[in-house]
């Protein structure tokens, strides 16, 4: 019945090149550059069928929001968020998230999202209020009170002797060590295998608990870039947000006071990651403990080195210096061989 703004919803069918081009052109006018992982997009159109507002999703994150200036205050964003949230829920993701510039956080709070954490530049919101704390609390045990509790986040792509060493060193410094394995399937080694290898490779350490990282680890892969400007440093924004989410939402629920990271002098991104942690965590009473990587042949043992060697033709047996037995064994299995094969294909 609204007489003045007669906006119709129109889904943008991304499989139709003409429609996708229309969406991209609209985003371009708003200086937004979408990633290629969009699975759904929807828009509001005027009487002339022109896009005047749009939003998109990859099934877990809502993104690529753009609303024409003259529509501000018409709740266009609310309608888009509504449709996109419904889409995510139909895809089985009941707690879709939004990463947005901090000044836009209240806009999404008005649409039913709750802020998990924010930095000066960006914020993370989720659909289930307190979802992050509830996620973490599930890993709490009744006798945790009064204990020294630490955490590690790792991708383990795949699990190496370097990871094993890091876990051992950290576990020795606390009563309980939570190990979160990054949960996203953009790595060469699928999440289920990475998690299983970390679990098996640390099962002898009684005080280590291995968990899926859930949606609360803001990795390079999950951090949306559509709203970035050329002057933005994506790595700083992503790693600071990740540190904030950990410190504000995950750590308090588990009383984590120690966060362990491996030093990585050769990788700029990991270095930035550690620097962001160092900036953020102490503000929340969490101490960052850097543990030097162990070396083999004067090079730090790292998963990227393992992947490089595998893709260059090394056999799992030849990597015995770098890999714990569980990983070597997995690489010999049929699934492991397939992964090595695909590594060599994409080299």
């Amino acid at each position, binding site marked *: *019945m*609204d*007489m003045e703004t007669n906006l119709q919803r129109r889904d943008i069918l991304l499989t139709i090149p003409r429609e996708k081009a229309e969406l991209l052109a609209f985003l371009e006018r708003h200086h937004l550059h979408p990633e290629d992982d969009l699975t759904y997009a929807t828009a509001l159109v005027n009487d002339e069928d022109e896009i005047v507002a749009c939003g998109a999703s990859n099934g877990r994150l809502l993104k690529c929001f753009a609303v024409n200036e003259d529509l501000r205050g018409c709740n266009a964003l609310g309608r888009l968020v509504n449709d996109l949230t*419904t889409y995510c829920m139909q895809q089985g993701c009941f707690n879709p998230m939004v990463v947005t510039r901090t000044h836009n956080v209240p806009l999404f709070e008005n649409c039913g999202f709750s802020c998990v954490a924010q930095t000066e530049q960006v914020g993370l919101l989720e659909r289930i209020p307190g979802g992050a704390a509830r996620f973490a609390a599930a890993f709490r045990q009744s006798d945790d009170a009064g204990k020294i509790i630490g955490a590690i986040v790792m991708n383990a792509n795949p699990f190496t002797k370097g990871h094993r060493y890091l876990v051992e060193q950290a576990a020795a410094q606390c009563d309980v060590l939570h190990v979160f394995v990054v949960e996203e399937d953009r790595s060469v080694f699928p999440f289920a295998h990475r998690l299983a290898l970390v679990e098996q490779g640390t099962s002898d350490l009684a005080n280590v608990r291995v968990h899926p990282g859930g949606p609360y680890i803001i990795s390079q892969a999950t951090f949306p870039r559509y709203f970035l400007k050329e002057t933005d440093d994506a790595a700083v924004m992503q790693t600071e947000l990740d540190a904030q989410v950990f410190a504000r939402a995950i750590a308090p629920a588990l009383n984590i006071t120690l966060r362990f990271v491996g030093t990585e002098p050769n990788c700029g991104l990991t270095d930035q990651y550690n620097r962001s942690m160092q900036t953020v965590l102490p503000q929340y009473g969490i101490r960052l403990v850097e543990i030097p990587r162990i070396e083999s042949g004067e090079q730090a043992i790292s998963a990227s080195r393992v992947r490089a060697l595998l893709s260059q033709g090394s056999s799992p047996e030849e990597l015995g210096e770098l890999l714990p037995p569980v990983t070597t064994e997995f690489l010999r299995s049929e699934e492991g061989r397939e992964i090595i094969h695909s590594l060599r294909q994409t080299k």
Partner: protein
Amino acid sequence: MATTKLKRTSLYASGATPINMIQAAFYNEDCIVYDMEDSVPLAEKDSARLLIYNTVRYHRPANKYVMIRVNGLYSEFIEEDLEAAVRARPDAIRIPKVEYKEEAVRICQRITEIEKEAGLEPGKIEVWCNIESYLGMINAYEIATADPRIEALALGAEDFTASMKSTRTKAGLEIFYARNAILTACRQAGIEAIDAVFSDINDPEGLKEDTTLTRNLGFDGKTCVHPRQIDIVNSFFTPSAKEIKYALRVLEAVEEGKRLKKGAVTLDGSMIDKPMELRARTTLAQAEAAGVAIGGNLK
């Protein structure tokens, strides 16, 4: 229940949007139709049903004839729609796409059963049947007389023209026969006839032309697609002061003729026949229902 018997204008309000339902009560339509059918997406049928139930049962607009349009007879929603709609206690339930007498009979029986279960006065809820296909039009009289509950037939022109393979035009020649067929059935059944919508909400002149035809054909009212159509349509079904004055004079002359036991009555030099008398009575009935002061004393 409704405090007006007028059915000049019906306005649909989608059960999918509360703002729509709330605002619809503030316009001048005689009949408000809370819609569970076409305006509600499949995934929201359950929530619309609850919203309409709570609105009609506990917060129905005053001074309106309140209707609920349920989903199609063969849809998976109809049974629960009826459970909710009857218990909401509207003035009428509007049934889409009725084509056979048996369909109307079945729905009316089901309404009676639910009324009994819920401890409501049986037969109080009226039924409007939307005639939206050539089949419905052919069977219009049978449908109109299927049950005493049936209070009106309403022509749905978009679906009707689709069933006929016709093109819907503003002039409406393609529905001219259907309008007459439905009107004829209603007159013989003694129930109300409601005309189809005029779809272009931005063409008030077109609406006036179309409503002139609606009225001249003899319909009792018209469905509106947008609030801005309501006042225009109402005006066509509300007699003007000149018409009322003339009708009063016609009936006065007739009464005078009876008193004087005259065989033929004349007014202003012309003879007053039976149809003129009937039209005059209709004019006054419309005026009375619309709350227009008649200034006479005639029944």
